[in-house]
């Protein structure tokens, strides 16, 4: 009888939507499994060398970076979130969203901007020398090594912690904070005794996002000369052409990711307080006198350092190099970036919509499915890149007889030298961005309309096009823009998986910076930043809508 029931239930669920979802999940899972399988293959000489002399250093640097960035972004993000959520002071409304703007500057662009700006010939030192006749010790201002990377990561990634913590404090903590105030506790005590413990899951959530960014980074660490596992993956691949060792390194990085995943569970365990569902917005307390000025200065300094100063510096450089850089090749660059981003985004959204629709059934299958398709976001770009590359090379070997029959030569690399590889990489990495936006849309509309449609004799597919799609249109648009922007900014995947002579704005910017043509890199940097600001604005608008 049990098998009968299983057969009945499978028959009930089995349809085109299910099959497409399954294919999407396999495409995402395959490269990851491929990387893990490399552990069981026989190691080569390169790997023995890496393991004996280098691996310890790579792992140590990676962990130091993660820990220090985690601590500093938490400090900055949580204090700013608390000040903005709980207090009123001059320009607070502006800072509320202005403090998200550092996210629009990709960290590798921030790194070369700061390094050049604070360098010997940069604006800071030359102004001090020429205007004030003051010779500062260059070492004090040097942005390099781990301290430089932590400085850049903290200043430009803290908004993840700030955004999530602020949203939590503004919407769900009101009753507790007001009670603590009524019970006569001082602001500092309220912060330590009530705010911090309650918002721990939100803070941890924000820090984890920061950590994923740091682990997947290639731009900052390679530019500042730090050897991490991610940079090592690039070196073994491009320097030694050793995919096998690169895969082993990726597997090591995966071990760290899994460790962080469990650490997150542990940190959140027992801390999921049942919070009152009746949420009122927190009424901010007006800060007077010095306290108000201090809050303004604190937010102002972070905004200046995290956005305005590097942005103005880039504008200045762009003005200097505009005539030289802005030509037809630059237009081609923009076209290529937009082209690959649009195709990838459409692919992501189509599969997101299908999987999110299947996931509405809330069965254990759909739960696992949604976890698989969103897993790419927590996997650093270099790991995805190496997994995709390995799969595509295997595919090319497998298809070699077909190629030869088509007259394409003996064992050529067709797929692994094509743009498809990069698109698949983006698909895996940014599926979560599209999926989450669509899922929010489905959650908002609920199941009642599609159930009503099915009760009127309309099947699942027609129901989707006639009822669901018009209702989730808004989420679809925001999902499209957010995914598009993420892809435009992306660096490691594009560097590793692009075909020969194919550049995106991000890779070109990186290339300029790497060739010490910092000024020339500014126009493409600004273009990326402007596109990213668009995403911040949209996030803000979505936040407002949800609040309403």
């Amino acid at each position, binding site marked *: *009888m049990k098998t*009968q*029931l299983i*057969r*009945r*239930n499978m*028959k*009930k669920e089995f349809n085109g939507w299910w099959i497409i979802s399954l294919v999407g999940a396999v495409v995402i899972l395959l490269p990851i499994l491929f990387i893990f399988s490399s552990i069981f293959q026989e190691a080569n000489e390169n790997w023995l060398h890496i393991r004996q002399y280098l691996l310890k250093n790579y792992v140590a640097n990676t962990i130091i970076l993660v820990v220090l960035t985690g601590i500093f972004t938490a400090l900055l993000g949580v204090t700013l979130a608390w000040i903005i959520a709980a207090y009123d002071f001059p320009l607070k409304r502006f800072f509320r969203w202005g403090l998200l703007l550092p996210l629009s500057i990709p960290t590798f662009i921030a790194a070369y901007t700061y390094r050049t700006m604070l360098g010997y010939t940069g604006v800071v030192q030359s102004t001090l020398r020429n205007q004030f006749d003051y010779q500062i010790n260059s070492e004090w201002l040097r942005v390099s090594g781990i301290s430089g990377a932590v400085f850049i990561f903290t200043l430009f990634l803290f908004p993840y912690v700030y955004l999530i913590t602020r949203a939590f404090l503004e919407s769900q903590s009101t009753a507790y904070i007001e009670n603590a105030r009524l019970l006569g506790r001082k602001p500092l005590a309220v912060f330590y005794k009530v705010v911090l413990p309650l918002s721990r899951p939100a803070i941890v959530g924000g820090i984890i996002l920061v950590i994923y960014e740091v682990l997947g980074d290639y731009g900052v660490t390679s530019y500042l000369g730090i050897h991490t596992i991610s940079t090592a993956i690039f070196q073994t691949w491009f320097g030694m052409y050793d995919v096998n060792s690169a895969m082993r390194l990726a597997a090591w990085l995966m071990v760290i990711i899994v460790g962080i995943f469990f650490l997150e569970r542990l940190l959140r365990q027992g801390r999921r307080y049942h919070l009152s569902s009746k949420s009122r917005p927190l009424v901010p307390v007006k800060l007077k006198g010095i306290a108000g000025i201090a809050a303004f200065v604190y937010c102002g300094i972070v905004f200046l350092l995290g956005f305005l100063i590097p942005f103005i510096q880039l504008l200045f450089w762009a003005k200097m190099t505009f005539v030289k850089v802005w030509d037809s090749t630059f237009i081609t660059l923009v076209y290529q970036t937009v082209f690959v981003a649009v195709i990838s985004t459409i692919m992501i959204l189509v599969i997101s919509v299908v999987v999110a629709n299947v996931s509405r059934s809330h069965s254990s299958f759909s739960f696992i499915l949604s976890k698989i398709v969103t897993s790419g976001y927590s996997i650093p770009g270099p790991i995805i890149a190496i997994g995709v590359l390995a799969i595509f090379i295997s595919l090319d070997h497998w298809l070699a007889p077909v190629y030869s029959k088509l007259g394409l030569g003996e064992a050529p690399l067709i797929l692994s030298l094509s743009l498809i590889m990069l698109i698949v990489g983006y698909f895996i990495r940014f599926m979560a961005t599209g999926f989450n936006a669509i899922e929010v849309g489905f959650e908002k509309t609920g199941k*009642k*309309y599609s*159930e*009503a*449609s*099915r*009760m*009127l*004799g*309309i*099947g*699942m597919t*027609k129901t989707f096009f*006639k*009822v669901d799609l*018009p*209702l989730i249109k808004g989420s679809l648009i925001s999902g499209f823009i957010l995914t598009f922007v993420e892809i435009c900014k992306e660096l490691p995947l594009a560097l590793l998986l692009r075909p020969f002579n194919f550049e995106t704005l991000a890779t070109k910017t990186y290339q300029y910076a790497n060739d010490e043509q910092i000024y020339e890199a500014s126009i493409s940097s600004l273009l990326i930043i402007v596109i990213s600001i668009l995403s911040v604005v949209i996030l803000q608008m979505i936040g407002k809508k949800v609040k309403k």
Partner: protein
Amino acid sequence: MSIVDIEGLTFSFSRKEAPVIKDFSLSVGKGELVGILGQSGSGKSTLLRLISGLETPLSGTISIAGTTVVSNHVFIQPENRGVGMVFQDYALFPHMTVKENILFGLSKMPRKDRKQRVDEMLELVQMEKFEKRFPHELSGGQQQRIALARALAPKPKVLLMDEPFSNLDADLKESIREELFNILRKADMTCIMVTHDRNDVEAACDYSIVMGQADVKNHISPKKFQSIK
């Protein structure tokens, strides 16, 4: 002739939880109006979702007009069961007008007959003047009538109603309830209605059952109900 036959129905939300509905049986004849009463969590709405195919039972059989729609080896999708449903909050499609909402379920009908059917339905619920309005432009009572018209338009074999009066004001409720039951009688519709209000049942149901009690198999007539009260 019975339109809905339920035999030994058992349902649980997860394998770890105790069944919400256990070994439940019911038979509803043509044109009968059955009320289902019970406290929240007793499985009233779940029963409707099982009949309509929006949930799947652990065991048991449901037949509609002589066709088995679910058993241990059969599962007919909701859209193919010939069941109409009026949802608790009506679930009128917000992006469609009243007319489009009613037309929605008529896609299998010949094109030329559809317009006539819509007009018939609007007349039945006395909402002829509102066909171009959107759901948010209607009052609660008007929305409920359109939801009923939409559910009846495709001529379902049985109509299921989930707390159809719970979103209405107390003074409105009584008049609308009477109107609704008149419409159903006029249409000679077999109907199962879930409610938590005994007055709804007493007003028009042929008989009622109380879920979440040991004797769910026994029908309680409205008269008997009054004596309980």
